[in-house]
Each structure stands twice: as structure tokens, then as C-alpha cells.
């Protein structure tokens, strides 16, 4: 039962984005009795559309933003003009109903308590925007639990001594361990570390009407063909529509938030699938378009009242972009692991999660066992760690079934210079300004992942690897973790949204997605983004009921 709303009839909420946060907000607000239209740039796909096609999903647009139609400029320094990406976008996200939850890896560890108040614990870091969140872990805990039960997460509560307190165990047991998980566990235990089963938003058994994982191996970068991986396409979105109050408008690309003379949002202007411009009237706007597209939309919506873009009195819209570094280590063993089978990750180590000032740099992280990943990407990346062509390289390729990867996921410090802006010249296929991305890792971020990579090497050596190699840690030029660009905070001069995701400048404009994060965590941000979305929805519904929007 899907509802269709008239453009001229103001709905309660226009939600821009149908992904991790947008899907949750749509369901929660529709179930709370509000009328909702969700706008999604990309098409609506079904499970039958998803294929094991690495070329399509990794080297052509597939389901992601497209370097041809949605070009981006990248530079590592603000004085440079930058370069246009031709293979993969710098800021990559899935452009389809369900957003990035359709193609993510579904690693679902919670942020720890320190992720929210580390600035108070450690003090300031010169030259950075390192700050506390306006909320603490305890306030978010009920919403983490809500995600785990209503989206569906497999895991083992209490398995990691470093996990923050939780009010409820996971609804499903962990997925079967892989050979890489056994080896990570073996090596880590020998070193006195505390490996634990990876929490994943993938069904280990049938849950909420979706089947258990069939171990096909195509999670990272692919849509799950049976729906065992929990995307909002298969969870929140249909549930929102089932209320009869939510319309999902696919292939509807929002390019402007319309503001009236009082400085309030009254509608969203968008291109429909035929590139015709439409305006949907609305009483409030929630932008959940991800950490790249949310700031871009605010900047594109600049008008005479808000010449620097909407919600940008602080000047921080698009600033403090954070990625999370993932450093790779590969280990070759005597026997076959066949990492191409099943989920991407089955064991995690959080012993180095916290910052330790004795190391001489800020940061910490998680280390996990990983799939290779798929053949082309693996074959490309393995060349970073030894011969990259010729006979020796070919011999290395044949070691694929006996190779595992260990990924070291680290922190990114918030730097004002790392940003998403509008490019002054480059335009997308709709004639709208393209994104210009500026990013350069803080030296501590690189030192941190080098440290983690050394630990990963020790773990693999302890596990009995025949050979361990690591990709050199180089500055990042791209990411799928798009964080921090409209950060939340109590001070309107130092943040874009308040603790309830309401923009400081426009009372009926809310922003909720990866852009809200104040710190990067140690990777795996989607669970936290969804917990924030559940929490935001509860507050926004209350504001609406009390006529406070």
C-alpha cells in the first residue's frame, strides 16, 4: 500500500535520502502518524537486480554515484585546482533506494564511550576540530539496541571485554566463523589479546521475514541477492510504506531546499526521472543524503537570505570531513582459506581501540579478519605489497585461496581544511555544481594506522602465516565513510546542528546522517548513524506533536 502525495499539498516531512538514516527516519515518522515523502536520487531496485558482477559494481557506476554523471574534483591541498576522478568517485556512496546500506559490508560494532567524550579525556589537539559530542554513549544506548533488534544484527554480547555496556544481547548468534577468523583468533589469543565474533547486520538465521545468509561472498560493494544483509531497502522502507503514510520517490534528485521570507523551509525542488523540475511542499525538511550530498545540498540552496548556503552561519557546512583509514595487511598460509566464501569478516580485535598517549599520537582502532576482497580488487591491491606485474606477480595471484586480509581501521581527526564544497566550474549531468573534495590525513591518523598495521602483522605471524605483507600507508584520496561535514553541537558558532539534529539557523530543517558525527569512531559508522536516526526521529516526532517545528 503506497501513498502518493500531491506536490502542492504540504506533507509533514520531506526526507532527502533513503539510506541508513533516511530509511529509519521515514519508518519512525510514518509509524508515528506523520505524512512523509522520501526523495532518492537513484532508482529503486529489487533483490533480483543484484548480481555477482565485480566490473559493474566496482568499475562502472553500478549502483554507486557515477564519475560521468556525478563528477567530483579531488585535491589534497586547498591551493590546488584538483583533479577529476575517472575510475571511482572520491566520495563513494550507493545511489539507490536503501542508499549505502544496499552495498555496505554490514560491520556493526558500536562506538565506545570514549568516542563521544574523548576530547574531555585527552584535551585539545592543536590545529584540529577535535571536540566532544553533545551527547554521550549512554543516551544513545537504547537506540543502538533498537537498531540491533529492528534492523537485525548477528553477534555475541559480552564476547569483547572492551564493548560498552548494553541493555540487551544481540537478537541472532554470530555467523559461522571463517578460516580467516579462526586464524585471527588464534594469533590474537597467543599474544594475549581478546578477539571476538564480528557483529554484522547480516542474518545468521531467518529474522524479521528475511532469510539467513547463503555465504555467497558478495557483500562488500554488492547488493545482497537474498536480502540476508539488512539494507533499509529490505527493512525500514517497506515498513514505512506499509503505514500508508510514506511515499518513496525514486529517481528524484533534490537540488534545492526552498526557503520563505521568514527563513523557514517550505519545500524541496527536485529533478524527476525525466529531468523535469518539481517542487514538493512540506512543513519540514530532513536531509539524510550522506556526509557528501547533505552539505552539497545546503550549499546549492544558497539564497539572498543565506548567501553562504543554508544552516551555514558557522561556516562549517562541508567542513571537518572525516574518512576512517583502513590499512591492509595480507597473510599467506599453508592451506586454503577460501576467503571468497561467506561474509567479509568474522573476527575482530578491539584491544587497541583506545588512544594511548604513550604511543605518541592520537588515535586507536579495530583490527579485523577480512575477505580479500573480490578477484579484481584483490589482484590490484596485492600489487602494492610486492611485484605488481610479471611472472612473480602471476605466482602471487595463484595464492588467492590461501591468502587472508587483516584490516586495521583507524581514527580520523576533524580538520577544518578537509571539506566538501561546490566546484566553481565542474557540473553534473543536471547542470548542478559538482562536489570539490579536499582531503589530507592528519599525521596522527597515518601514524595510528601504521601502529595498528604492525599489530596486525604480529597477529598473523603468531597465527603461523608463511608470509605477511602490508600495503604502504599512503594519504587517502577516497572513502566510503563520509563523516562530520555538518557536525552536531551545542554552540551555533562551532556546529551546524544541535543535539537533536535541528539546524541552528533554520528551525524546520533537520540534518541526520554521517555528516552529524563529531568524531570518526574507529570505522564501521553505519550502526551509529542508524542509532542517531532512531533517536532523532523520536525527538523530531515529539517536536512535531508539540508544534515546536
Amino acid at each position, binding site marked *: 500500500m503506497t501513498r502518493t502525495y500531491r506536490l502542492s499539498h504540504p506533507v509533514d516531512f520531506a526526507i532527502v535520502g533513503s539510506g541508513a538514516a533516511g530509511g529509519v527516519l521515514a519508518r519512525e515518522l510514518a509509524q508515528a502518524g506523520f505524512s512523509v515523502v522520501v526523495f532518492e536520487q537513484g532508482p529503486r531496485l529489487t533483490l533480483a537486480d543484484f548480481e*555477482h*558482477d*565485480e*566490473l559493474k559494481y566496482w*568499475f*562502472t557506476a553500478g549502483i554507486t554515484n557515477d*564519475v*560521468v554523471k556525478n563528477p567530483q574534483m579531488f585535491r589534497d591541498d586547498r591551493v590546488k585546482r584538483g583533479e577529476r576522478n*575517472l*575510475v571511482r568517485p572520491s566520495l563513494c556512496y550507493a545511489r539507490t533506494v536503501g542508499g549505502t546500506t544496499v552495498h555496505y559490508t554490514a560491520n556493526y560494532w558500536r562506538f565506545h564511550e570514549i568516542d563521544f567524550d574523548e576530547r574531555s579525556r585527552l584535551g585539545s589537539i592543536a590545529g584540529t576540530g577535535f571536540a566532544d559530542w553533545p551527547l554521550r554513549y549512554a543516551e544513545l544506548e537504547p537506540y543502538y539496541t533498537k537498531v540491533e533488534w529492528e534492523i537485525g544484527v548477528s553477534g*555475541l554480547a*559480552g*564476547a*569483547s*571485554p572492551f564493548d560498552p555496556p548494553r541493555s540487551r544481547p544481540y537478537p541472532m548468534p554470530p555467523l*559461522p*566463523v*571463517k*578460516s*580467516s*577468523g*579462526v*586464524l585471527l*583468533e588464534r594469533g590474537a*589469543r597467543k599474544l*594475549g589479546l*581478546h*578477539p*571476538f*565474533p564480528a557483529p554484522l547486520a547480516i542474518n545468521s538465521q531467518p529474522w524479521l521475514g528475511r532469510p539467513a545468509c*547463503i*555465504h*555467497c*561472498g558478495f557483500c562488500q560493494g554488492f547488493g545482497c*541477492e537474498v536480502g540476508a544483509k539488512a539494507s533499509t531497502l529490505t527493512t525500514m522502507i517497506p515498513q514505512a510504506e506499509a503505514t500508508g503514510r510514506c511515499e518513496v520517490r525514486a529517481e528524484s534528485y533534490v537540488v534545492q531546499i526552498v526557503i520563505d521570507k521568514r527563513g523557514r523551509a517550505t519545500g524541496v525542488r527536485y529533478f524527476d526521472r525525466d529531468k523535469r523540475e518539481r517542487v514538493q511542499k512540506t512543513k519540514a525538511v530532513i536531509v539524510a543524503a550522506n556526509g557528501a550530498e547533505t552539505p552539497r545540498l545546503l550549499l546549492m540552496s544558497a539564497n539572498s537570505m543565506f548567501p553562504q548556503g543554508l544552516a551555514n552561519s558557522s561556516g562549517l557546512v562541508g567542513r571537518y570531513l572525516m574518512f576512517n583509514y583502513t590499512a591492509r595487511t595480507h597473510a599467506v*598460509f599453508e*592451506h*586454503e*582459506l*577460501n*576467503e*571468497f*566464501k*561467506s561474509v567479509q569478516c568474522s573476527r575482530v580485535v578491539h584491544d587497541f581501540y583506545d588512544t594511548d598517549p604513550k604511543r605518541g599520537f592520537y588515535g586507536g582502532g579495530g583490527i579485523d579478519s577480512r575477505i580479500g576482497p573480490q*578477484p*579484481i580488487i*584483490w*589482484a*590490484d591491491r596485492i*600489487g602494492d605489497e610486492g611485484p*605488481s*606485474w*610479471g*611472472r612473480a*606477480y*602471476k605466482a602471487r*595471484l*595463484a595464492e*588467492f*585461496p590461501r591468502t587472508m586480509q587483516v584490516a586495521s581501521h583507524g581514527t580520523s581527526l576533524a580538520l577544518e581544511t578537509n571539506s566538501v564544497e561546490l566546484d566553481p566550474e565542474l557540473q553534473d549531468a543536471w547542470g548542478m555544481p559538482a562536489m570539490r573534495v579536499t582531503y589530507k590525513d592528519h599525521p596522527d591518523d597515518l601514524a595510528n594506522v601504521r601502529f595498528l598495521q604492525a599489530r596486525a602483522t604480529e597477529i598473523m605471524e603468531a597465527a603461523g602465516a608463511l608470509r605477511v605483507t602490508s600495503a604502504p600507508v599512503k594519504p587517502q584520496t577516497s572513502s566510503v565513510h563520509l563523516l562530520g561535514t555538518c557536525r552536531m553541537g551545542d554552540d551555533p558558532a562551532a556546529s551546524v546542528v544541535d543535539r537533536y539534529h535541528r539546524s541552528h539557523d533554520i528551525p524546520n530543517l533537520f540534518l541526520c546522517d554521517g555528516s552529524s558525527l563529531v568524531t570518526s569512531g574507529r570505522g564501521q559508522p553505519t550502526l551509529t548513524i542508524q542509532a542517531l536516526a532512531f533517536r532523532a526521529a523520536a525527538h523530531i516526532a515529539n517536536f512535531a506533536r508539540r508544534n515546536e517545528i
Partner: protein
Amino acid sequence: MSFSRQRGSAGAVHEDGYSRRAFLRAAACGALGGTWLTLDLAKVARAAHDAQLAHESPGAPTTFLSRIELADVDAIAAQIIPTDATPGAREAGVALFIDRALATFFARMASDFRSQLAAFHVHCQTRYPDAPSFAALGNERQMEFLTQIERTPFFERVRLLTLIGMLAMSKYGGNRDNVGWKLLGFQDQHVFQPPFGYYDRDYPGFAIEVNERS
């Protein structure tokens, strides 16, 4: 003159990629050299293979590279993943895959590719004036030359395209008979069951008490 500086001198490059001079010289050699019967067996094999490649080219309007360009790309790809006891890039059909890709789904990189390939050709001829093309060089000189340019954007681009042509689904024209997947030991199946590999076969289960104790 460095390779990267040559890349910048796009003024010498015609629309079709090669400089006119290089094109005429190649044409005068009959593309693969009229004297190929007098060359050593490896060269004969390669030339025959190149001819077969050109012959096999479906003749569809999607073909992007000229025969000379195709032969060079094929020779580079065959150095990246050589044929030894097991099939390499040649058997996977990588060169034709690249040709087709540049005409279709990788058209966005086609013009860059063509000018880089032309610069590669000129650079190769400058260094080895006796050879009409990279493909006509012997194995050792091919490896020597590629080692010199392995950090250039052009080589990195050909390398990536070679890997894609080797390992993408065979419906795209490469990875013939799944030779790339066989090389890796990759299996594309919809359903797998544990145990997945050797090390998870006899896993006793996760001992949560070990973490709790320590």
C-alpha cells in the same frame, strides 16, 4: 626526454592517437612488419597471434584501437600476466576486452588512453629505433622498457584494465573460459556452506570465557 614530459606534448598527437609520422612508419611496415617470416620463432608466434587477434576482432563498430595499438596493448598485457604453465592475459583475451571496453563502458577514459598510448609508442621508438613497435620488441627489451615506465599513469591504467579483462565476468569479453578465475582459484557460486576452508573445519566454537578471564 621523460615519458611524463612526452605525455604533456599532446600537440604532436593526432585525433586518432599516433603522431602522423609514427602512423606512416607503422603503415609502411605493413602494421606487423613484412619481414616477419625471417624473425625468430617467438616473434613469429607473437605476430601470428596479433594477426589472429585482429582477425578475431568482431568487426563491430565498438572496436576502438587500431591493429597496431591493439598489438601493443596485447604485448603489454602479456607481460603483466604472462603465459607460462598456465594461461595468461593472452589466453584470457585481455587486449580485445580492453578494445571493447574503451569503446563502451570505459569510453570516459578512452581519449586519455589513446594519447597516452601514442606517447608510449613514440617513447618506445625513441628508445628502440630499430623496432617498429613495442609489440615487435623481444621479451627482454619489452620487460626492460616496462620496468622503466611501470610508475607512469599509462602503465597503471593498462595494468588495471588487464586485471579487469583477466578477472571480470566472461560476458564482457575477457576472462575467456574463466582462465583468470581458474588462475586465482576463485569460484562464483550462489551458495556455500561451512566449513569454508581448512582452518575452520575443526573449530571448537568461540570460547567466551577466555576473554572474560583475562
